[in-house]
């Protein structure tokens, strides 16, 4: 069976800067893939290309047999990819419930069923009781949780999480990891996480892809990647080796 998502030799340039060079990547359905690399490695650019916010200059991105290299974000979402942002993009002046209803309206055009679906998902992600709060009033952890809930409401087959845990306290991070596990286990989605916190990515991912200077350095199971000399030099650093 063909993989859910295929990124084939993707290159994206910004003027003279090559943000992604010849990056290939595969995500199978129901798989959790970690995307790591130092700052400026091109992780977010790759996410933007996959989700349609940017279009690759060369190469192809195929979702479930459909070429989405040139598709706009709203079409990519309709085809089954939902994402969150590094900087939260909740609808601040709408309530928590209304935010999620906007997502749920992707699959139904009637507000009633969308509301029911939104309430279900808010209970699932642990935001029950905060439905009527304005989204702008939430803590950062809850805003990120809300964004995940809103993305889930579009019923995706692949969820892209861009640093969903950065800036959170250790306790909040643990809760977020738990949420990602439950999304994977209960909803059966494929998930791709961009994350800086190795303690989060390594135990969570089935497979890890390492980017450096816009190119794919290596990929493989977390335990292999974390022992890879090149990865340690480029990104993890000697301290990580000492701990591992």
């Amino acid at each position, binding site marked *: 069976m063909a993989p859910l998502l295929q990124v084939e030799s993707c290159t994206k340039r910004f003027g003279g800067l090559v943000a992604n060079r010849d990056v290939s990547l595969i995500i199978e359905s129901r798989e959790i893939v970690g995307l790591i690399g130092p700052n400026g490695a091109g992780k977010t650019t790759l996410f933007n290309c996959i*989700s*349609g916010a940017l279009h690759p200059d060369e190469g192809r991105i195929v979702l479930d047999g459909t070429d989405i290299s040139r598709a706009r974000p*709203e079409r990519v979402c309709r085809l089954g990819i939902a994402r969150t942002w590094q900087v939260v993009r909740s609808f601040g002046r709408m309530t928590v419930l209304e935010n999620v209803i*906007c997502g749920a*309206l992707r699959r139904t055009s009637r507000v009633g069923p969308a509301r029911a679906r939104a309430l279900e998902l808010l209970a699932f992600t642990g935001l029950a009781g905060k439905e009527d709060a304005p989204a702008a009033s939430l803590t950062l952890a809850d805003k990120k949780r809300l964004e995940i809930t*809103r993305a889930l409401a*579009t019923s995706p087959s692949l969820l892209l999480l861009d640093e969903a845990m950065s800036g959170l306290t250790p306790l909040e991070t643990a809760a977020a990891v738990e949420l990602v596990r439950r999304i994977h286990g209960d909803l059966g989605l494929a998930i791709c996480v961009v994350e800086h916190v190795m303690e989060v990515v390594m135990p969570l991912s089935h497979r890890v892809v390492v980017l450096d200077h816009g190119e794919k350095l290596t990929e493989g199971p977390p335990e292999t990647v974390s022992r890879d000399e090149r990865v340690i030099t480029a990104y993890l650093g000697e301290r990580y080796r000492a701990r591992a």
Partner: protein
Amino acid sequence: MAWVGAALVALLYPIPFERSGQIYYETVGFLVLLNAMLGIGWNIIGGWAGQFDFGPSIFFAIGAYTAALLSIHLGWNAWLALAGAVVVSVAICAALTYPVTRLRGHYFAIATVAMWMIAQPIGATWPLINGSQGLFIPVAPGASFVHGMLTMEFPGRGKGLGFYYLSLLLFVVALLGARAVERSKWGFYFRAVRDDQDGAEGIGIDSRLYKVIARCLMAAIFAAGGVLYGFWALAVFPDQVLEVNWNILPMMAAVVGGLGRLWGPVLGAVILIPISQLMTATLGAGPLAGRGIDLIIYGAVIMLIAGGRPNGLLSLPWARWAARVLGRAPARPLQG
């Protein structure tokens, strides 16, 4: 209860003036309702979709001209002409707006101003609409009040009353329509695009499409308002229907009353229009006439409200005040 009260006031308002012959106050009521209706329309694109449109009067003008042409050349009934004017206005709005929906924020606003500026020389020179000499809408003589309501033609007495009720009818239709939109998928999507366009696109919302839809809803309401105004004035002149006030007043009504709230523009129009009329009627005459004192005070009132309550008057704690006046226990315990 409040609803029934407001409806009764709106329905009975012109009766005493009709009896005493003070038609002027009926006309003030007509202008309040017309601007409230336009404010409701502007609130859809400006308040909900968050795209400031500084040139909505072009759709007011398109509405007035289309209805006048249909009435003069084809002899259409005013209501039929209104339907035609709405269709034409929405079609033109869709074609004009789609290209500029790529623009965001200030740039979108500037594009709408540019459209309005381009419309002015067209209105003043186009032979089809008789250029700056305008179009005159003929009125058949000697008809009854009921006939007037069915044709928007009031050759004699009863015009003030008739147009008050015509504007009330269109206002109620606009209000109920906006209320239905607010609670529908469109209403959710408009606000999503306003709060974060990239976030909205990320959950599958075509931001350009929904900006066009929001502006077309506004264009429909402005066109209907333009038709009403044309039949009231019995003539359509480019400098009148493209007047800057048709851009500014509906927007100010929405902002002063409460941007993005259904009743905001209604409250704003109820406050602003009578003040403006009162100022002109009292200070516009007498020893200080011609010095613009009326406009200065009017402007000061608006600045006071905008500065003191930037979120609009509807954001004040009306419910708590009402509870206190009616002697009920306040919803929240009062401090100290």
